[in-house]
């Protein structure tokens, strides 16, 4: 599916829309504590903003936006962020994923939980975004040789 869309309207329209969708994805992740939202939904929106460029302008041109070889290491990094948060709490003397023991000074336990939830949501968002992009890239690559 490397043949790009022939119409320039589609190309420029997706280029115009993609940063705003990405911004909305970040808003959904970081505002997930106060409104419906969170890591899964925001990660999906980020993936949509990447896939829009990939569908409209072809995989080759979309490498300028997000490199294909970055997807698997970033997905692993998301899992490591989540697991590392839990392991840090475990090392500092609490239970696994017990955010009260995180080594952030000067915060009472309830706000430590607040920040702990935000950190793991970032990890979830990173993993969901990169895995959805990875699935699309691999499906396109598998189709090319058919």
């Amino acid at each position, binding site marked *: 599916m490397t043949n790009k869309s022939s119409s320039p309207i589609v190309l420029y329209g997706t280029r115009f829309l993609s940063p705003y969708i990405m911004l909305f994805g970040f808003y959904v992740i970081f505002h997930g504590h106060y409104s419906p939202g*969170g890591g*899964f939904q925001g990660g999906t929106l980020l993936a949509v903003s990447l896939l829009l460029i990939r569908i409209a302008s072809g995989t080759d041109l979309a490498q300028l936006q997000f490199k294909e070889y970055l997807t698997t290491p970033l997905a692993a990094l998301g899992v490591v962020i989540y697991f590392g948060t839990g392991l840090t709490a475990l090392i500092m003397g609490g239970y696994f994923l017990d955010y009260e023991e995180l080594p952030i000074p000067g915060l009472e336990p309830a706000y430590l939980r607040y920040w702990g939830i935000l950190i793991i949501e970032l990890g979830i968002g990173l993993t969901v975004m990169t895995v959805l992009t990875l699935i699309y890239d*691999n499906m396109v690559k598998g189709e090319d040789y058919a």
Partner: protein
Amino acid sequence: MLDFFMGHYAYWFTMILLAIGLYGMLIKKNLVKKTIGLSIFQAGVILFFVSVAMKWGATVPVKADGLPVSEVSNYMNALPHTLMLTAIVVGVATLGVAYALIIKIYNRYGTLDEEELLDKIQ
């Protein structure tokens, strides 16, 4: 009678969705259509759980000013929402794996029809 209908029509709707999904998975011969049936079945299950979590006169489970959390009937049950949120994303990942397998099958055998596939394998 009207009360009985108003209390149950959402359940009946999800049951009909389950039946459509099962029909797609069992009767259709094309593998892509079977996958679409699987997706419809999953949507039925998710809608059933979310409709169970609903309460009349309640609002979404985000704490608002003026609605005390000690009064449980102010907020909907948040547990099914959480479970279905993760189930949706896992469903998307499952669909990705299913389509990867389908692409692999098509590259090797050149067809997606179930009976033709069985003939070619033997």
